[in-house]
């Protein structure tokens, strides 16, 4: 498998896990620049482990991560965020004792994001008007949907070159989920390279350009989202058709 010239992020034969337990067994994938890629897989397939290893929150045992062709495997999460590789983590992970505005300010920690922080705040308030109305409210007091909006908004504040989402629709109502996918579609229009890990296979395949299926810590299927949607294995296992 070779990285196409347009691969913004290339994951190569990645192996990692927790303690003695190996979860990833040589996973490889490419994120094409400006494209939305979705990563499917059942619970325990290693999706979150892959994201955490890519970010450096978990050490890679073998294999590597290339960001614009540069080997960033060993960089810590904050160094990767500085480069523009940003993860909106599972379970939102907000700064619950801080206000919405302070959470956004913390999102704008990378040096390249600081100068334009004020404009970025206005942009995310345009995208999520509800957050603007409650800017001085503590993040911990928001509803689940509002918290997810804030988690995404905080990620956007970093001016990401690559934005990765881990289960953003988890625990959201169907209305909020549709809302969320509308926003992801909008972001795609702005040309941000994105990786989406989602339990809602139907919706994520519908908005994505490319798709990968992770099984037992390895990529088992890949292609354009359209191709993957038609694969019999995917139709049976993930779409219930």
């Amino acid at each position: 498998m070779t990285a196409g010239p347009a691969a913004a992020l290339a994951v190569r034969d990645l192996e990692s896990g927790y303690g003695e337990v190996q979860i990833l067994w040589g996973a490889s994938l490419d994120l094409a620049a400006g494209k939305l890629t979705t990563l499917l897989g059942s619970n325990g397939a290693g999706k979150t482990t892959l994201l955490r290893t890519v970010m450096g929150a978990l050490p890679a045992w073998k294999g590597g991560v290339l960001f614009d062709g540069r080997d960033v495997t060993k960089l810590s999460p904050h160094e990767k965020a500085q480069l523009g590789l940003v993860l909106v983590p599972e379970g939102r992970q907000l700064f619950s004792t801080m206000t919405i505005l302070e959470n956004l300010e913390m999102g704008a920690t990378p040096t390249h994001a600081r100068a334009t922080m004020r404009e970025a705040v206005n942009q995310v308030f345009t995208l999520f008007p509800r957050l603007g109305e409650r800017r001085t409210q503590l993040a911990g007091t928001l509803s689940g949907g509002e918290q997810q909006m804030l988690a995404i908004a905080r990620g956007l504040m970093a001016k990401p070159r690559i934005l990765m989402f881990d289960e953003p629709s988890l625990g959201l109502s169907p209305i909020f989920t549709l809302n969320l996918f509308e926003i992801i579609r909008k972001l795609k229009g702005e040309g941000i390279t994105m990786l989406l890990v989602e339990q809602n296979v139907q919706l994520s395949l519908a908005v994505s350009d490319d798709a990968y299926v992770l099984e037992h810590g390895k990529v088992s299927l890949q292609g354009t989202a359209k191709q993957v949607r038609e694969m019999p294995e995917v139709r049976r296992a993930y779409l219930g058709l």
Partner: protein
Amino acid sequence: MSVDALVPSAIDGLMLGFVYGLAAMGLTLIFGVMRVINLSHGPVIALGMFVVYVLFTGAGVNPYLGLIAAAGLGILFGVAIYFVAVDRIINAPELTTLLATYSVNLMIVGVATSVFTTTPRAVDISLGSVGGSGVTILGTHAVAVAIAIAGAALLYAILFRTRIGKSIRAVANNRAAAELMGIDSRRVLALSFGIGTSLAMTSGALLSTLFSFTPLSGATYEVKSFVIVVLGGLGNPTGALVGGIVLGLLEGVSTVFIPVSWVPVLEYVIFIAILLVRPTGLLGARA
């Protein structure tokens, strides 16, 4: 007789309470940010006393200028303690961090005792006094209160108004998420340890203008800080300041009725009572 002494003694205690509170804010800040119970807290308070003492007796530096030096050195020294003793075990269970900071405690006490011996020292400074009719307030006490309040205000301004202060709160709240946002959490932890140490040393500097001291004096104030922190809620700087004032006041009032040597007993009784009745502290804990 004893009732006549009540008011001045209460005022004295109240004023001291601000200085206790300042030290306790340092202890509680470090715990709140990194869940480390800093057992080097007491010796660091004593170090603050000796910075003022050495500058004052050695070079004639005004104790309040010496205090600024102690505050600055406190940051550097705290960062050094963090990298030498705490950083490598930051994710280890609490017993490990207790032992690591306790070893720092022993080292400071050992070196300071060999250098300064245990002969009591004092910084001879008088700023006069105000008042009359039974209630007099020493100038050094009044200045100590003002500086303690200024120190607490400065801490809050840093934590709530500056980016680095907000990063400290973010790391305290969710270290993993802070890393994902690009915050170098290790640097933030080191700085927090520095600020906490600086608060303790500043408090020690103030105490040096009020009482005589030895390298072992920190232990007394360390115990007070622990009582205060439990009183005010672990990890809560406001609680530490309020707890300090409460403890100071209690001390002042109680010495009218019981011998001074019984004050530590009273402190431990309060400590245990709070743990039994209201373990989150009077003001509750804030993450």
